[in-house]
């Protein structure tokens, strides 16, 4: 902390001036999340999954990672699905299941915690209201029915709005 005092008497109208100066740094938070394959580190961008052998493997295990500097109250996942080949088959439905307080065994397809259905869609949004701590992740299973026909591709996106982080607080210190 610097304290400066100047008393100027150079001219008749000059007035003394005292000043006290100090500095401070202020930083702001960021919020957001990303979808990655199970256990992978978080990188920005959407996750694209090719469902090539649905009959044999109707599951994909993914993580929803909180990349914020604040806890998340929720987030919105958006799925976009397209057929890889031509044809007019209907788009398959993708269902999301959360493994709460646990993790998915990708081999057995089982959850070590408790499961919660988050919703399903062909192309659209699913709102996730599960809180996630800073740096935390949600373990999800994406599944589709076995008889969905030709291969298709799903794009998983996540978005976090202001309303999905805690309300502001006043800190005195």
């Amino acid at each position: 902390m610097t304290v400066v005092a100047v008393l100027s008497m150079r001219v008749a109208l000059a007035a003394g001036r005292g000043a006290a100066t100090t500095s401070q740094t202020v930083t702001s938070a960021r919020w957001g999340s990303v979808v990655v394959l199970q256990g992978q580190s978080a990188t920005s961008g959407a996750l694209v999954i090719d469902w090539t052998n649905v009959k044999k493997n109707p599951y994909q295990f993914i993580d929803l990672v909180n990349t914020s500097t604040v806890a998340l109250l929720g987030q919105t996942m958006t799925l976009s699905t397209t057929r890889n080949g031509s044809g007019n088959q209907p788009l398959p439905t993708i269902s999301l299941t959360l493994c709460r307080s646990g993790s998915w065994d990708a081999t057995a397809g089982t959850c070590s915690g408790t499961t919660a259905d988050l919703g399903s869609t062909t192309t659209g949004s699913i709102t996730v209201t599960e809180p996630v701590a800073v740096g935390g992740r949600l373990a999800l299973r994406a599944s589709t029915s076995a008889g969905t026909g030709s291969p298709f591709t799903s794009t998983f996106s996540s978005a976090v709005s202001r309303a999905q982080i805690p309300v502001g607080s006043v800190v005195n210190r």
Partner: protein
Amino acid sequence: MRQSLHRTLSSWRGLVIAFIGGVLLLVAGPSVFASLTAQTSNASPQTVASGTLKLTMSSTNPSAGFSTSITNLAPGDAVNRYIDLTNSGTLDSQGLTLGIASTGTASLITDGVAPVTTKALRVTVRSCVAAWNQTNGTCADAGGAVTQIASAPLSTFASAQSFTDASLAAAAGLRLQIQVSLPDQNETTTNGVLPTNTVQNGSVGLTYTFTEVQRTATTTNS
């Protein structure tokens, strides 16, 4: 011959007399033109001292004041810091102001201009005659807190802002609550990519300068 010698001596005698007379006149002359002089002095020297104008600030215990950073502000957050500002000189002051020089993330300094709707950090200055309650940020004085400088974006403080109570008597002080807040605002982050013109993940360096000017000069008759 004798007559000639006598004449020569006579002429020398005149010169000698004139010389002696001149010398006497030089020696005695000033006495003829002397005047009277009288003086007086104070027995002990008069002391003349100049005043001092000093402005000091310190954190109001237990507040960290400005000494620690404010981090991770989210929309709607506010942080109150407490400082004591004192006119520690011997002169009364006037024209108390606060200026803040801000460097860093532009969106935290200046409000966005349409179509950009970001809102920058705000600073508010309040004072309390009594001690601040640093647990809940309230002023213990019956009259409540006084808003010295209303909430304004950082960019406004590039020009010094005047206090409501702009005069400080010598040795007087103000108990200040300095609030830094980030206004509530909507932003959505998709796939971990921050939106453009975001207020997120920003950092600014703030240099606070409190300034006072000496009271109006006076002429005293006494």
